[in-house]
């Protein structure tokens, strides 16, 4: 079962990019832990694995998968599972997480987190896949809420209930992406605070924050896009504060994956994350 006391520290963390290796070693600032995308470290050797090993001696590491396709209708790729097992056994990270999404179908990998309807059928499949991963890795994993751009007519579950039920049946924890909550709530026209109120926050082992882009759909309705290519938006920080007020401080990750800036820019985001965590700490005390 998921246990909040194990895993990552309730400090700011950052999505690791190789161009920041020296900066992180020399001037880590507020960095309390690092997150890496599992698939980038599934090569056989070389600099990526050497850097990761060096970083793991200084920081707790979160391995975050982006290619397992847990929401697939079909079976999980056994080759990919064994690569993941090899990485996790070698690195012994503080946490492993993946997405409530799919990315592989009929052997094509789409390199994006694709959405699934929330039905009894998809629920059973996701639970089966999460259990399979946890049995293989011999540890509970965290499952992340998606950023939604559309609704499936066929969905019969609310996302918060769906995630809670997956966690209840599989014993997994949850990764709460607050930027994704803000994006989905804006795109599908509901209150992000009400999502947080309905969310099983006691199961949250990690929080994500990232930047998004703004667009509109063909009806002129706002369409936010999860780009991870800029600073976290102010209303997302406000939602973060609200969330921390409900559940207390948790490991808080800054994600910046495209147009990756200089370390100083990321470091400033981490300072802001540290301030949010401090505030959450004081509220609890």
């Amino acid at each position, binding site marked *: 079962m998921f246990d909040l006391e194990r895993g990552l520290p309730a400090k700011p963390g950052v999505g690791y990019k190789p161009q920041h290796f020296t900066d992180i070693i020399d001037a880590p600032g507020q960095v309390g832990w690092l997150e890496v995308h599992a698939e980038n470290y599934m090569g056989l050797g070389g600099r990526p694995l050497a850097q990761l090993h060096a970083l793991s001696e200084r920081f707790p590491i979160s391995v975050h998968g982006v290619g397992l*396709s847990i929401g697939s209708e079909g079976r999980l790729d056994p080759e990919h599972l064994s690569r993941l097992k090899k990485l996790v056994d070698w690195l012994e990270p503080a946490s492993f997480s993946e997405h409530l999404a799919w990315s592989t179908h009929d052997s094509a990998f789409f390199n994006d987190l694709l959405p699934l309807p929330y039905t009894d059928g998809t629920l059973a499949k996701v639970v089966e896949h999460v259990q399979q991963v946890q049995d293989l890795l011999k540890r509970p994993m965290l499952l992340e809420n998606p950023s939604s751009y559309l609704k499936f007519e066929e969905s019969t579950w609310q996302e918060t209930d769906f995630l809670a039920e997956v966690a209840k049946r599989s014993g997994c924890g949850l990764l709460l992406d607050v930027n994704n909550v803000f994006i989905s709530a804006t795109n599908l026209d509901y209150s992000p605070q009400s999502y947080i109120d309905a969310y099983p926050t006691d199961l949250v082992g990690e929080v994500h924050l990232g930047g998004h882009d703004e667009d509109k759909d063909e009806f002129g309705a706002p369409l936010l896009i999860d780009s991870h290519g800029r600073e976290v938006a102010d209303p997302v920080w406000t939602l973060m504060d609200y969330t921390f007020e409900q559940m207390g401080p948790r490991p808080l990750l800054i994600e910046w994956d495209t147009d990756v800036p200089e370390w100083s820019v990321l470091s400033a985001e981490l300072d802001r994350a540290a301030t949010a965590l401090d505030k959450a700490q004081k509220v609890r005390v």
Partner: protein
Amino acid sequence: MTQISQSTFSAGLLDADFPAPPGLTNAAGEHSPRRYAVYRNNVFMSLRDALGEAFPAVKKLIGETNFNNVASDFLRSNPPSSPLMMYYGAGFPEYLENVPQLSHIGYLPDIARLEQAMRHAYHAEDVTPADPSALSHMSEAALLATKFVFAPSVHIIKSPWPILSLYNFTMLPNQPKPQRRAEDILITRPEFDPQPHALPDEGAVLVESLIKGMTFGQAIEQAGETLQLELALSLLLTSGAVTQFITNEET
């Protein structure tokens, strides 16, 4: 209620002309192809960017616009078959051979092969190079009977074009203008950065023969009389290509 299988959802991800599946709506329940197009755009752009990162010299040689056009055509029919994006683009060099608009740049597929081999070398297993002094005490007969074990990062690219000169000219500052000649390349990875080396005449045959498991003597014979043996051997011994010498006694 429309049920959307993942086959239906994915059918239009790589094809902009494919209509968005029904049953996908905005908050008001209105059919919204624009919202489906966000996924299509994400897939498309991420794969195109991955190819651009994998083949920077090809991109530079033909320019961003041309590259994006070619990459877009390629990825539609060749999506990744694994989540390991570092290896994406396996069929890209061969694909370039068959793009009529690029046929005037005959060396382009070989540049792509060079970039692909460098990328594989970057992620190859770590090994310790063999100590070349092991050969210095051997008799000539023992040396000729020796077999070489190569590092997993070693790749050979044979080309009728001066591809290393072209690659360096494209990617590095202050490089001489490439001269028209054939160049064969040996890629090694001494520590973390793959190094492309120009092989001397018939050096590629020598190394390929050794990789196949021939003895040094057999490989020399295979390479023929025009082999620049000293240059080739010195390159093999100083570039970290060899991880082990297997002498006759050990075989």
